[in-house]
């Protein structure tokens, strides 16, 4: 029972971070048909920029997170202006865009390594403080992350559902040719998508760094494939689906360590669990767990 509570809680924390990272990837895919393989490195970058401002420069932690989110937005926007926009005008296909994104990832990694080194870093927060919850040990940082990640998820979901630009993004993702002829400003939708993706990448990176307690320059890339599993699980290109897919995948990966699953899957096999879940979903519900099929007329 204690184990169950512990893994459930860990799963919620991991899942909420997955959700934030996955929704950014999903939005970029749905709006731009771009499989953003550089998304993981934006997490790493976000964590390091926050580290630089909060630990090296001793700025306020929340302010440092905001700065790193702004930096993530800025870099994403910059890449849109100098790279993605031109590739789209040249009618680059999904595979070409994917390869360029991989190239961006491969270029970001040495830059991050050069700027911040390969040492393990820690945020200036108390990572040892824990609370007892029905016998389960809940870290203070986990609790903080869970609260703020949940608030972020609710904000993103409300934004997608209620804000005009959120609706425009979903409309464009759903039917780009109609969106372009119906008063929706496509360039604005694309820029908004990059800004959101950049901000969420940094935020997820900080959360992940907090929960891990320590991180190095390989943090993001090691998580990338699990994020993609979450995106596919929640139906590719569905923002709400990515949120729920991320949450479920995080829960599932943690709960797989419980004894009832083949005596408990060792924690270093979590990515395997993610992909096993992905394969199962694709086999039995190829449109993703939250997918639907439009009526044929």
């Amino acid at each position, binding site marked *: 029972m204690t184990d169950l509570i512990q893994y459930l809680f860990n799963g919620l924390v991991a899942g909420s971070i997955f959700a934030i990272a996955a929704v950014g990837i999903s939005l970029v895919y749905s709006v731009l048909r771009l499989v953003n393989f550089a998304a993981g490195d934006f997490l790493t970058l976000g964590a390091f920029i926050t580290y630089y401002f909060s630990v090296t420069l001793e700025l306020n932690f929340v302010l440092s997170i905001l700065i790193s989110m702004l930096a993530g937005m800025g870099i994403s926007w910059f890449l849109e202006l100098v790279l993605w926009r031109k590739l789209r005008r040249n009618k680059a296909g999904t595979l070409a865009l994917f390869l360029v994104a991989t190239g961006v990832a491969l270029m970001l990694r040495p830059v991050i390594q050069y700027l911040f080194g390969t040492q393990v870093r820690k945020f200036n927060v108390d990572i040892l403080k824990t609370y007892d919850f029905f016998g389960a040990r809940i870290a203070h940082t986990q609790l903080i992350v869970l609260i703020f990640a949940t608030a972020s998820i609710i904000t993103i979901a409300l934004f997608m559902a209620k804000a005009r630009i959120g*609706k*425009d993004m*979903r409309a464009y993702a759903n*039917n780009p*040719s109609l969106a372009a*002829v*119906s008063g929706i400003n*496509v360039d604005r939708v694309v820029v908004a998508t990059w800004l959101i993706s950049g901000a969420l990448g940094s935020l997820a990176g900080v959360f992940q760094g907090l929960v891990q307690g320590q991180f190095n320059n390989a943090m993001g890339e090691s998580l990338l494939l699990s994020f993609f599993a979450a995106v596919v699980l929640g139906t590719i290109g569905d923002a709400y689906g990515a949120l729920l897919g991320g949450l479920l995948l995080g829960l599932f990966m943690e709960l797989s360590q419980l004894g009832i699953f083949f005596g408990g899957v060792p924690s270093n096999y979590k990515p395997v669990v993610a992909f096993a879940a992905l394969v199962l979903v694709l086999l039995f519900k190829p449109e993703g767990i939250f997918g639907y099929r*439009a*009526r044929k007329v």
Partner: protein
Amino acid sequence: MSDKSSNKILLTIENLQGGYGDVQILNGVSIKVPEKSIVTIVGPNGAGKSTILKSIYGIAKVTAGSVTINKDGNIRNVLTSKPHNLSKIGIGYVPQIENIFPALSIEENLEVGYVDYANRKMEDLKSEMFQRYPDLANRAKSRAGTLSGGQRQMLAMARALMSAPDVLLLDEPSAGLAPALVDELFDELVKINQSGVTILMVEQNARRALDISDYGYVLDMGRNRHEGDGRKLADDPEIVGIYLGRK
């Protein structure tokens, strides 16, 4: 039907030429759309009917000619406007296929059709649409992808009307609809027109479309071939024989 040919000309297409890539489809088409009228373009397959509408939206390439709209007394160049700005100068467009957002709710489909310079409140326009189409109102929160073909066509038009356009461009609105729904659709177009919206449509169902039109154009090989009063065109035996097919 009152004579609207003396109304001021709202939309003017002048010697339009163009096509896709190197393939020229339009070889000089000229069309005048008087305010508050229904104008229909008919003609055989491949005559370039839909290409006219697509060239207005930059989907087809224009090599020569002009398209202008008279917006509150100012003559505006349509071809140099970005597609998302066309609703700003009073043009609404309903493409022939994939003309709704199936993953969005019916209500959201209407909301994304709204533009804030429409001079009307979104809530007013929305309740107007729901009043006009009770089928849509009853299922406002359902995904638009669950609608039937006829309901989708209504939603597509309602979405375009949400920008309070002066002129509505319709690309084969009756395509794929069951015969009973075709009548309903054309009745609806007359009602939309009576509410003050000018309509320029391209139709395969030539006879039915011309019947409700103030003016009609027959296109062939990307050129104007005949034009005249809608009913008269529909009854002209020569035109019926060559272009419209027997009924």
